[in-house]
């Protein structure tokens, strides 16, 4: 039995998305500077859903038995597990494609008209998802109580001493063996005008963060980035080889890539150690198209969804930092 117009177009849309998906997923990641830079450090991980939550292995504990010793000295024998596993929930992102029978019918048997409409619908979905990914990555929300990814502002908090639970660990109370708050990122309020204090403030928080890691990415809002570019242009190199290879418009601060994002809060500069922040995707649910369903009370109108399952995470927080209230 020959396929009906609706069935035919269902197959065409599904086949087309299957072929477009790898390129479109790349495009979503390419368009997002943050994900592009994570990917450059192999911090976009592919991990299948195994249970309700995904695991984030943390190495925050230290042994207390290391010592200098002389002949015949003894070591205290005690069991030690350096690995602490934090948990977070997978987040589902999706959008839908609706097709009305009337539109399908109007386009009749014309390949060109059908493919034009299909391309337009799919491009729109891709662009919407791209924006959603960007929004969620920069949001100040996260955790199990919200549907969005963990946002950068949530993972690198501008007030890390307040009570907030990130990956199931409360940043205000979690301490290590030495009584240090291991689950708090660094933060600093600008000392004054950027023209006077900008460089020293950035240097100060950079050094503070580097006591626990290796900062390799700075992200600011547009205004702060432009201030930095104007002030630092004469003294610092403006080219970073990695950023050039990635085709990123950037400046550098002490050799680190410095970019800006329209989603970044005004007056903020984030200092990130990309070895300890990343994005995990379930490869089986990476922008896949579901089956076409008939809308019950409409004649031959159909709908499908394109979905992704992922989340953003940190496995160490002390090495990241944020400087706030920067202004001209």
């Amino acid at each position, binding site marked *: 039995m020959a396929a009906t117009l609706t069935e*035919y177009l269902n*197959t*065409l849309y599904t*086949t087309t998305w299957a*072929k477009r998906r*790898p390129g479109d997923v*790349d495009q979503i990641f390419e368009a997002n500077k943050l994900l592009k830079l994570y990917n450059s450090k192999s911090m976009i991980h592919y991990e299948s859903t195994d249970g309700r939550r995904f695991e984030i292995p943390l190495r925050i504990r230290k042994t207390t038995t290391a010592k200098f010793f002389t002949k015949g000295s003894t070591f205290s024998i005690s069991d030690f597990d350096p690995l602490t596993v934090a948990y977070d929930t997978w987040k589902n992102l999706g959008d839908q494609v609706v097709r009305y029978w009337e539109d399908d019918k109007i386009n009749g048997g014309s390949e060109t008209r059908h*493919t034009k409409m299909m391309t337009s619908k799919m491009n729109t979905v891709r662009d919407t998802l791209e924006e959603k990914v960007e929004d969620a990555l920069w949001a100040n929300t996260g955790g199990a109580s919200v549907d969005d990814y963990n946002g950068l502002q949530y993972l690198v908090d501008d007030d890390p001493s307040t009570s907030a639970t990130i990956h199931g660990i409360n940043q205000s109370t979690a301490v290590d063996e030495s009584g240090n708050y291991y689950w708090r990122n660094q933060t600093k309020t600008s000392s004054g005008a950027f023209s006077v204090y900008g460089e020293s403030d950035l240097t100060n928080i950079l050094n503070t963060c580097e006591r626990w890691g290796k900062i390799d990415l700075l992200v600011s809002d547009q205004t702060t980035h432009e201030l930095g570019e104007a002030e630092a242009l004469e003294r610092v190199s403006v080219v970073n080889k990695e950023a050039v290879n990635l085709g990123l418009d950037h400046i550098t601060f002490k050799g680190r890539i410095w970019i800006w994002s329209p989603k970044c809060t005004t007056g903020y500069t984030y200092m990130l150690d990309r070895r300890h922040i990343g994005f995990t995707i379930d490869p089986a649910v990476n922008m896949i198209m579901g089956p076409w369903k008939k809308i019950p009370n409409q004649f031959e109108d159909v709908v499908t969804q394109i979905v992704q399952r992922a989340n953003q995470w940190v496995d160490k927080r002390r090495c990241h930092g944020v400087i706030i209230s920067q202004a001209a």
Partner: protein
Amino acid sequence: MSKLFRFLNPVKLFSFAEEDAGGGEDKDKDIVSKADHDALVANNAKLTKDLEEMRMEVLSPDYMTYLSNKGTKPPEPEEKAKAKETELTEEALGKLSPKELLALAEKNAKTALQGEMDKLRAETATDSKARSKREIAAFASTHDDFEEYRPIMHGLSLDPKHSHKPLATLYKEAKEYAARFRAVPTEEEKKKQKGMSTEKPGGGSESYADLRKLSTADATAKALDEVKKELGPIPLA
């Protein structure tokens, strides 16, 4: 030494009154001081102990058995004793009933036959091994690369389904087996392998790497071609 002897003889040692009764300076010569007495008692105890230890070392159970059996005839080996048991004297044979005689003869004949058969089997096995060796040597002399394929041939021959195959067949199959591994992959195979290395789960049968290179227009055109091939042109209704 005389003092030691005296102390080894406790009766004499403690009979001071009797000696004293003799009186005079000579009698005092036999009297020892308390310190000497204690030293000699201790020495005596030590010597007794050493003697006991030496006795225990020398007179081990094996040595004691040897000593007790010394002079007697050594026992006969077990097998010999058994053989003797089975040997029947004419007198004993005479006492057996015809039925018992038949059973005994049957038993003896079976044992003798079994022995002969074992001997023959061993000889045949040796012959078979020698024959195989000769056959292999002859085959090797006519095939220069025999040693190269020998391990594969051995591996094949271990499979019961190849056990009946002659050397020539095994050699041919070993060569075919090796050729499969030495073959250079075709361009098509190379491309497939390359694609497999970059393919992510959830992808179709096509290479993920190839698909990500497609532009939107190319992907759409390819999909349309595939659907048309399967379902024909777009229907009107």
